[in-house]
């Protein structure tokens, strides 16, 4: 199945891309998707920071099981305001 990934801020810069579509196996979790992306975008790997995970504009846990067409965002530490 396919999911859509959006990269923002430091992750966008490190990935060198704002968006990606990724083919993953049914039932993959958000954490597993992150592992796969680190292989596709090696510069994401050394990013040692606390990430939050959002699916379809809501925060989810790392073990959230993805579904076809989900929009996934790995959220670096926010710093608005």
């Amino acid at each position: 199945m396919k999911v859509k990934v959006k990269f923002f801020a430091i992750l966008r810069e490190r990935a060198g891309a704002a968006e990606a579509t990724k083919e993953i196996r049914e039932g993959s979790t958000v954490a597993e998707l992150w592992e796969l992306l680190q292989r596709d975008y090696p510069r994401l790997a050394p990013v040692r920071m606390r990430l939050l995970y959002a699916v379809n504009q809501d925060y989810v846990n790392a073990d959230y099981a993805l579904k076809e067409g989900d929009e996934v965002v790995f959220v670096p530490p926010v710093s608005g305001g």
Partner: protein
Amino acid sequence: MFRVTRNAIDLQELVAFVTDPEAGAIVTFIGTTRNNNEGRKVIALDYEAYPEMAEKELKRLGEEAGKRWRIQRMAIVHRIGPVQITEPSVIIAVSAAHRADAFEACRFAIEEIKKSVPIWKKEVFEGGEVWIGTQSGQPLNRY
């Protein structure tokens, strides 16, 4: 009114939005770009957002404030893109019958924005630039 925008924020528009005949108090918070940070001379801040989710989170925290305090209306507008020294990056306006509620809800809103709303600032300073908040060296981990 919960909005992310590339334009300059209009304080009067927010205050007009929260003005209410039942309100005796309006508190506003304006976050402005400061010319220095941690010893660095700041040139500008450059904000990026996940806009759909940022607006959803702003709305959610406005609803949460409405549960915790007796407020009349709330408006939050966050700017993205470059924000020069002295310019507002975020404005919050809250009206309430009584001032304590307006102060506390406004303070809550800015604290929550800094915790949970997917907006990021890059500081452009003399000699470089840095994404704020990512320098903790913490391992990958859910909060």
